[in-house]
């Protein structure tokens, strides 16, 4: 399906490229969008959003979430006592999430 998507969409681009006009008269036309002004500075700058901690948190909690799936899909075959380690795991992760969210919510440090 992925490959089919590529295979089906590439011709659309090719056709579009063929039948669309291509006029290279004006170099200003190909400048990046800067609201009618000539762009100042580099487009790909060193640019840090204040929300960088969320992406760090994502990496860790993504792992946690998919670990939970390994447990959740096997839950019906597990004894009830087996829930306890997972609860411990969850508790630890939540314990970590609270300071992490506190840190990432602080405004001036990012």
């Amino acid at each position, binding site marked *: 399906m992925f490959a*089919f998507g590529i295979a089906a969409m590439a011709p659309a681009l090719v056709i579009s*490229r063929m039948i669309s006009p291509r006029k290279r008269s004006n170099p200003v036309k190909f400048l990046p969008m800067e609201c009618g002004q000539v762009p100042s500075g580099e487009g790909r700058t060193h640019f840090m959003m204040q929300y960088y901690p969320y992406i760090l948190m994502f990496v860790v909690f993504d792992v946690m979430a998919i670990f939970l799936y390994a447990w959740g899909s096997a839950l019906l075959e597990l004894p009830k006592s087996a829930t306890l380690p997972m609860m411990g795991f969850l508790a630890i992760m939540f314990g970590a999430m609270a300071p992490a969210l506190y840190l990432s919510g602080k405004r001036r440090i990012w």
Partner: protein
Amino acid sequence: MSVIAPKFKLSGFIQSLLDNIFWILLLFVLIGLPAVFIILIVMPMPVLDGELLTPFLALSYLANPTRILPVIHAFMTTDIFRVMAFPGFGFAALLAASVIFAERKMMAKLQLRVGPFYCGKFEGILQLMGDGLKLISKEIIIPAKADKPIFWAAPVLFVATAAAFVALIPVAPGWVVADIDLGLLAVFAVIGFFPIITILSAWSANSKYPFIGGIRALFQMVSFEIPLILSLLGVVMVTGTLNLSEITASQSNFPWIIFLPIGAIVFFITMLAELERIPFDLPEAESEIVAGWLTELSGMLYGLVQLGSYLKLYAFAALFVVLFLGGWNGPMIIPAIPEQILTEGIEMGPITLTVDGLQSLFGNTITQEMLNGTFWFVLKTAGVIFFIILPRGVFPRVRVDILLNLGWTKLIGLCFINIFIALGLLYAGVLGPGGLQ
């Protein structure tokens, strides 16, 4: 009049006609013929009247519609049909296109206006086609210093990823492109590609607004992936499987939304955020950052991204239906295909029209279950899509810090409540082995 149109020249007209014919022929030879032959070679040919149906024979059969039916039947059983047409790309694209049309008309109705009206005879029904033609004939402008390979590839990859997502959705019993055991996990893996494509596309444009928009999109998608994953855990816990078809089949008596409403709500909200739809369309907030990461995309590149995002919309709505609303399950309301017609043919007065292939086609492939399942699936999906579209009319855009705060604190908290509800339901014996079901 002469101001608008240039002088008409017959030679120019003929030349353009010839040009078009040449390109169409070239495309057909380069793409069309190989495609046809690949289809004909890959699909297993049925044996008809004692002789194997070769491609040549199949072409010669085209004159007789009754003889072509087995070919169609054989084609429908192939994987290529599944990928291209029914549960796969064609079906999804059709639904996505109707979503675009329905969205426009519905927003227009909500906003007390008319919406697309003139293209096509009825209420502007051909507007989308017109827009597509316009997009495909527009010039593609690539900003200077852009990273060309990524810039070209990103929209295509976007559509392809969305298509891969679509491939995992079971539409009717047995009708799914990729019926893998770990379907839900595959969904997460596929969703994980969208932020990468977005940020790469934004980065490659070498422009500020796309870059900010891409970073916003990245944060938004990434932050909402955790609640998305966690909100579905409840369903997995009570069903004990990750296969989407099995999850759907497990809801034959009641949909999971009855037991796990919080999970459904959280999934719905994260769905809106992952789709970058209002109220969560921050990456394309036009009043702040012109069009976000789509700013520099023009012509068909933009069209492809739109197509991909609507495919994604369909896929998410379908995933909601599959996981919470019971997928294809529903009362059997499509009437059974009359056996009489299949076996004995259609009686039209004195003439009795007998079609040989119908029985195998409708008996084996297009069954009553499949039609009914598809009907219910499409109905439920349309309902979910209605609720995805509706917020666009009544909500403003949220701000990025509010959004992230919402995703990381409230939604994750609700997710855990949902998980404990599921655990409680299991351990109280309401669900699971020995419970209902």
